């Protein structure tokens, strides 16, 4: 299901990480960092598909699911963008250049880049939801001629909380993309949108029969955005969401990531909305 041989799926067992050195760390926002891992010793680097994630292990501290945020067309570079929220992610941030992380993956069902070929693509990212979507955007840019109109809608809490800010600015200058950015709150001087992500959709021409939507962000934000897309006539099968659940194994063993019939780790994290519709509005699934 995943491209390339998953790390350590052989004799070492699927729960054993491979140590990789931290090549560099780049600050994205006050609490978010992009970590580049050295994969130069791996033949072929670290191939993955947009939307897939890895399990990152911090020596003796813990292991967490983190999306791959780099360019799928450049497997020689392995990037993750991590928000420090708790024990493992703080320790991860603390490792610093030259330190070592354990990695296993790539895991999960990727964004449907094939299915989106020839279609208009609307990318909707909330907060760090942009991390797993960045590889999709880079893929779209690399294969630009194969897709129709591409719009990228990005939301964050404040302008300072936007990850990949410089790159967003560059994309906004790029005539091949339509990039709209909004924040929940801003001080004067901010000239982009203020408001919620679904509101940005009114600025985008949506042809329901040839639009594929890819979205990742807080679940509530996605539910609102789906409603807006439905109002515009986009069928459920064309709306794809990336979900987050507790993950202890990422390989279908631990049971933690279940969402009624699904294992988010292996059936997701990307799901077409038609599969989620019966469950996603229920509480405690």
């Amino acid at each position, binding site marked *: 299901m995943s491209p390339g041989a998953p790390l350590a799926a052989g004799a070492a067992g699927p729960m054993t990480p491979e140590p990789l050195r931290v090549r560099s760390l780049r600050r994205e926002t006050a*609490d978010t960092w992009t970590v580049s891992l050295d994969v130069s010793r791996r033949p072929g680097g670290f191939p993955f598909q947009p939307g897939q994630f890895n399990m990152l292990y911090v020596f003796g501290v813990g292991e967490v699911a983190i999306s791959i945020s780099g360019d799928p067309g450049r497997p020689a570079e392995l990037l993750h963008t991590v*928000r420090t*929220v708790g024990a493992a992610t703080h320790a991860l941030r603390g490792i610093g250049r030259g330190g070592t992380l354990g990695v296993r993956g790539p895991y999960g069902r990727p964004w449907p880049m094939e299915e989106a070929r020839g279609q208009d693509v609307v990318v909707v990212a*909330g*907060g760090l939801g942009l991390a797993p979507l960045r590889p999709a955007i880079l893929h779209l840019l690399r294969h630009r001629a194969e897709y129709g109109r591409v719009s990228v809608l990005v*939301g*964050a*809490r404040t302008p300072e*909380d936007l990850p990949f800010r410089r790159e967003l600015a560059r994309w906004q200058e790029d005539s091949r993309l339509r990039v709209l950015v*909004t924040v*929940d*709150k*801003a*001080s*004067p001087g*901010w*000239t*982009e*949108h*203020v*408001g*919620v992500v*679904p*509101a940005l959709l*009114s*600025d985008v021409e949506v042809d329901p029969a040839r639009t594929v939507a890819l979205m990742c*962000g*807080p679940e*509530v*934000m996605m539910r*609102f955005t789906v409603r807006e897309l439905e109002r515009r006539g986009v069928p459920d099968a064309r709306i794809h969401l990336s979900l987050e659940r507790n993950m202890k194994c990422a390989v279908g063993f631990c049971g933690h990531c279940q969402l009624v019939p699904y294992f988010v780790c292996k059936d997701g994290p990307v799901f077409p909305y038609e599969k989620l519709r019966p469950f996603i509005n229920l509480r405690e699934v």
Partner: protein
Amino acid sequence: MPPPLPPLEHHPFLRGLSPEQVSAIACGIRELSFPAGALLLREGEQADTLYLLRSGRVVLELNVPGRGTTQLETLKAGDILGLSWLFPPYRWSLDARAVEPVDAFALDASCMRGPTPEHPVLEPALAMRLLRHLYDRLERVRLQRLDVYKAGA
């Protein structure tokens, strides 16, 4: 040359209404342009206009003493701006600033406001559109106040 701006009856807020309905709603129509940075509404001032935005973006701002100015929401071409004329005391409750050059129709609120001898009730078509608009705004505000991006939200 930018494409010509659509006429009044093509503005999303009025689109689909009959000419009679449009003329019952819209009076004292002015076509206005604002440079970037201009204030369309100023908190506390007399509220007597409904703006139908035709191009550009406007941001709603609130000044909080000690905390400075906060941008609350961006409105853009196709949106409507300014509803404080609906109810007493008919004063703007926010500032609205053009973020970039803005074109708008300004409609005189006195024709829409009711009840007056000439307008005993709000035109039903207008009422439904205002409701729809307010409901959409309410939904957005609900989502916005959830602060969904906060760590652990």
